[in-house]
């Protein structure tokens, strides 16, 4: 299954996502948790800690870089992800690093 959790700021999206991911993993599913927030905090709710959350490289940052491109989605998750409790694999899609003009 593929689930996206959306809603207003502070509604509980990240907490819900993390509990869903770990609960599914505990019931034996192979789970990838994707943090699609430009202010990514899913690692904290999953339990990987502040430093590991901050150290995650965003997929977007690595595409177009001099790093050899990933060949498939699981290659991306393997190379740029982190292990979270209960066997969940966490990957981050984008994080804002440099201020520039943009849409809201």
């Amino acid at each position, binding site marked *: 299954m593929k689930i996206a959790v959306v809603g207003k*700021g502070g509604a509980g999206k990240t907490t819900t996502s993390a509990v869903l991911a770990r609960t599914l993993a505990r019931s034996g599913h192979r789970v990838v948790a994707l943090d699609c927030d430009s202010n990514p905090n899913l690692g904290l709710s999953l339990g990987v800690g502040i430093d590991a959350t*901050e150290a995650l490289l965003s997929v977007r940052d690595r595409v177009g870089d001099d790093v050899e491109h990933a060949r498939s989605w699981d290659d991306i998750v393997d190379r740029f992800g982190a292990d979270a409790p209960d066997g969940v694999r966490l990957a981050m899609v984008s994080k804002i690093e440099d201020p520039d003009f943009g849409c*809201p």
Partner: protein
Amino acid sequence: MRVAFVGKGGAGKSAIAGTFCRLLARTTGQAVVAIDSDPLPGLAFSLGQPSSDTPLPPELIEKVGDDPDSTWQLRAGTTVIDAIEEHAPQGPDGVRLLQFGKLRGHVRAVGPSQHAFRVIVRELATTTDLHLVGDLPGGTRQAFFGWAGFAEVLIVVTEATPSSMLSARRLARLAGADGGGQTVVAVANKSVSENDAARIDEFSGLRVVGTIPRDPAVGAAERAGVPLLDLAPTSPAVTAIGSLVEAMAREVVA
């Protein structure tokens, strides 16, 4: 004063900003414009404004020249004061609410209104005798990307939780990278311990200029869809936001 509230989603930006605007208007007796650049509704509720979704008409602005990359300006003959008197309606305590409307579909639908919004905000920032108070969307997307340039002081609203303080630290770092010369400070919100301000200061590196206690009146006002200031005018949170208004008045003078 010209300030903007930023911070993680759910930190309490809109609740504080709406109350802040109205207390600022009450204590100074001067004109206050609340600037809502969040594409989701929020600030109208804490101000007590009847409409949370009033886009600006694209006819307010015109292109400077014919170059496709040229910028926008207010249509000839329209002043920024005309624009806000007509399109930023006055609510309780005389506070005006300027917004570009809310996303109902694709982002393109609010594009023209956003251009008008940016032109008006840019012009307002150089207009004297007006207080500007911005409420930005949650997260790090907008704070330093051309949306808060009007502000002399950016106020990062944060709780003393890891995710909220991590967002505050990222905002502080982005402010440094942006080099806009703005002062960046923090407010400890939903505080339950006298150590909260010190923890936020230590983690984010931001100077904490105010502490707002966790107050059930805030949640009660949000559930009722009415302004905190009207539901609980003497609540601890309102009192603390009043102190924040005073602190910001000192900050912009200094």
